[in-house]
């Protein structure tokens, strides 16, 4: 049993079609406008674009909200064959079914519009999307490119990683792959250090991130221009652009007072922003081209991470939610619109147990135990 909370950008009603607020700074419940028996169904996953959201209740019920059919503040609910992965592309909604087919569906009705064939008949397991690339993962651990969003190219192009891949994700201009052995590969544009190879050079083919060799990673996530991973020991690694503090590293050299830092943190452990406020000259980081570890308040361990365009959310094993980075649309869920450059526990969920989190570009969806 679960309950979904939402906060952040709502300009198209993609969080709450019944509300005209441009954004929500405090978490609110997601309300299906057609309440029925499965209002308490566990949400299997959420996938959100800039202007819409698709909430998968169970695996066969999809609720879509936001800009649909050329209109804003829409809501649809329909049933479909079981879905295991999904992503919004410029053209619409792409899903991977439990049976392993990857198809494009109409986000208002679920009607199938197009289909990709797996390479050599292989089944798909996952689909992800960047600004102009759609990547899919097969059950043989292969990564394929489903072509760019402008055309449904029915034949996917293989992307050579050289090892069995268990997860892929995309930022706006880069991609990450996590292998079964726990290594991380990256490719694409690197101008903000998001590839983690120590430079700002682009890389056309997947290269292993040398700095992470020797550490086993268990999960990865990509934001607009940043990358995040968690190791088997529970350490958080970050790299890429830190212009809004989305890496959890300091953004300004000279801190002059509390209003510059995160004012909503009540976590007691000393944090990097605390140090800066005491007048220390902490070096700012704008681009982190090599992965670095970020300490979490109170030394918690992470179970899941998710990134928006310029913010990051993380779920701890104890069921707490941490957010940091850009907050102008309330996407940090702390009632403020300031950026936060340190991972902070979201107050609203302190008395609850968070079980899952998914980020849209400028918002966050949180599942909580009832």
């Amino acid at each position, binding site marked *: 049993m679960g309950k979904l909370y939402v906060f952040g950008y709502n300009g198209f009603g993609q969080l709450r079609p019944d509300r005209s607020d441009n954004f929500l700074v405090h978490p609110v419940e997601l309300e299906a406008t057609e309440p029925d028996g499965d209002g308490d169904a566990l949400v299997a996953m959420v996938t959100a674009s800039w202007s*819409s959201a698709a909430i998968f209740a169970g695996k066969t019920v999809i609720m879509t909200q936001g800009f649909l059919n050329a209109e804003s503040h829409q809501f649809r609910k329909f049933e479909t064959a079981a879905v295991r992965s999904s992503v919004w592309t410029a053209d619409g909604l792409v899903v991977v079914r439990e049976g392993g087919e990857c198809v494009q569906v109409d986000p208002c009705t679920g009607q199938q519009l197009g289909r990709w064939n797996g390479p050599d008949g292989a089944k798909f397991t996952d689909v992800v999307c960047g600004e102009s690339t759609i990547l899919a993962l097969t059950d043989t651990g292969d990564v394929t490119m489903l072509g760019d969003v402008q055309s449904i190219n029915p034949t996917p192009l293989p992307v050579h990683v050289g090892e069995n891949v268990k997860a892929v994700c995309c930022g706006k201009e880069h991609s990450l792959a996590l292998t079964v052995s726990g290594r991380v590969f990256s490719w694409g544009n690197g101008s903000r250090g998001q590839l983690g190879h120590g430079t700002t050079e682009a890389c056309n083919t997947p290269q292993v991130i040398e700095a992470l060799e020797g550490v086993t990673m268990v999960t990865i996530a990509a934001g607009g221009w940043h990358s995040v991973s968690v190791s088997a020991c529970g350490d958080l690694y970050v790299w890429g652009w830190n212009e809004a503090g989305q890496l959890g590293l300091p953004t300004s050299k000279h801190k002059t007072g509390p209003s510059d830092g995160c004012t909503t943190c009540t976590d007691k452990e000393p944090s990097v922003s605390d140090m800066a406020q005491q007048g220390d000259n902490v070096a700012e980081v704008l681009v982190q081209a090599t992965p670095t570890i970020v300490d979490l308040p109170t030394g918690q361990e992470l179970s899941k991470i998710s990134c928006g365009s310029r913010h990051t959310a993380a779920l701890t094993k104890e069921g707490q939610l941490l957010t940091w980075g850009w907050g*102008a649309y309330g996407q940090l869920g702390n009632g403020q619109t300031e950026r936060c450059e340190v991972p902070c526990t979201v107050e609203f969920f302190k008395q609850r147990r968070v079980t899952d989190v998914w980020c849209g570009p400028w918002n966050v969806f949180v599942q909580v135990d009832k």
Partner: protein
Amino acid sequence: MTTGLPKELQGVVPGCKKALHLETLDKSKLGAPFFFVLAQSAERLFQGRFQESLGFATNVLDFCWEKLNTGHWKDVDICWREVFTFGSLFKAICQYGMRDRFNTMDAIKTCDLGLLMGAPVLDNILTRLVAVLQNSARGTTKRPQEQCSTPAVASQVPKRPRTLILPVIDSERKVPRVHCPSLKSFLLNYMRKRQPVIIQSNMEHWPARNHRPWSLDYLRQIAGCRTVPVELGRRYTEETWSQALMTVDEFIDKYIVQKSADVGYLAQHQLFDQIPELREDIRVPDYCCLGDGDEDDIVINAWFGPKGTVSPLHHDPQHNLLAQVVGSKYLRLYAEEVSDCVYPHEGHLLNNTSQVDVENPDLQQFPRFNSAPYLECTLEPGEMLYIPPRYWHYVRSLDVSFSVSFWWS
């Protein structure tokens, strides 16, 4: 007939949403959701619903900002820069219309960001809007430095004897000086021969050197509240180099008047497109009409900074006339033929830049550098230096300096 817009703006801003001609924008590139938000902002604007319009305009600007930061700047479709301008236009009008919450300076800053990052629309409407806003601001607000609570900051360069320690220029390596050559003489003796030369007495008619002499006070008066890009850090080849946006007042206060440990340089900025009033104070040299290029393609850049700004040794693809308006600069020049003695960086991004620190060369790393012939000079106010295409040049300001460069083909 506009019902919503503040009356001072009605001369500059179109009267209705239709007059914006948003339908001429490429919806297939912008996407239906984005276009929807843009249209919503426009609609509410003309209804006088500024708060709502501002919300949507902010969405537009934030979405555009992400597009402008995706991929290489030069590859970003111009439509994103155009809609960034529209977003800035709507936001500035809303801020001006909500003067209980925002002040005119906020609206001016919004226009400036639109001018800096956007592409002109509606016959360069932001330039016209900012002029109206500046007039409105001047009528009612004090000049910013009068509100400054730290009285120690002076508004002009403190009076002191000119004790500049000028570099000793080797007479064998002096850049030649010539007094206002004819167009023909300049073309044949200098452009065609790729010969650097300092042209004297060619700026006497510039208002900036004449009846509207540029001083810190004058610049504050004309452009103090305007937001400009400033380069921070000793030189662009170093890791600590970055860019920041600030008003001209802030730049002068922090980096010119105060003895800041950090160097700030208003460098390579097309200030005269942004602030047409300053454009009136300079004159494009006639020599820029020589060559293949179009007069309209002449690029004019401002270079304004304190003593000690450095441009590392580099070359540019076009002809350059560097006009010194205020203050002096030391320059050293190396011909293209000795490029292998100046050790250009590898990689296509920096291969027009030398690895060598000209005034403190590491001769172990760069042994051939000292054997390369060069020319040098101190460029004084009222002089302009001709730098041929692909001619290496190194620049250091000897005092508070304002130069204007003209690039042409």
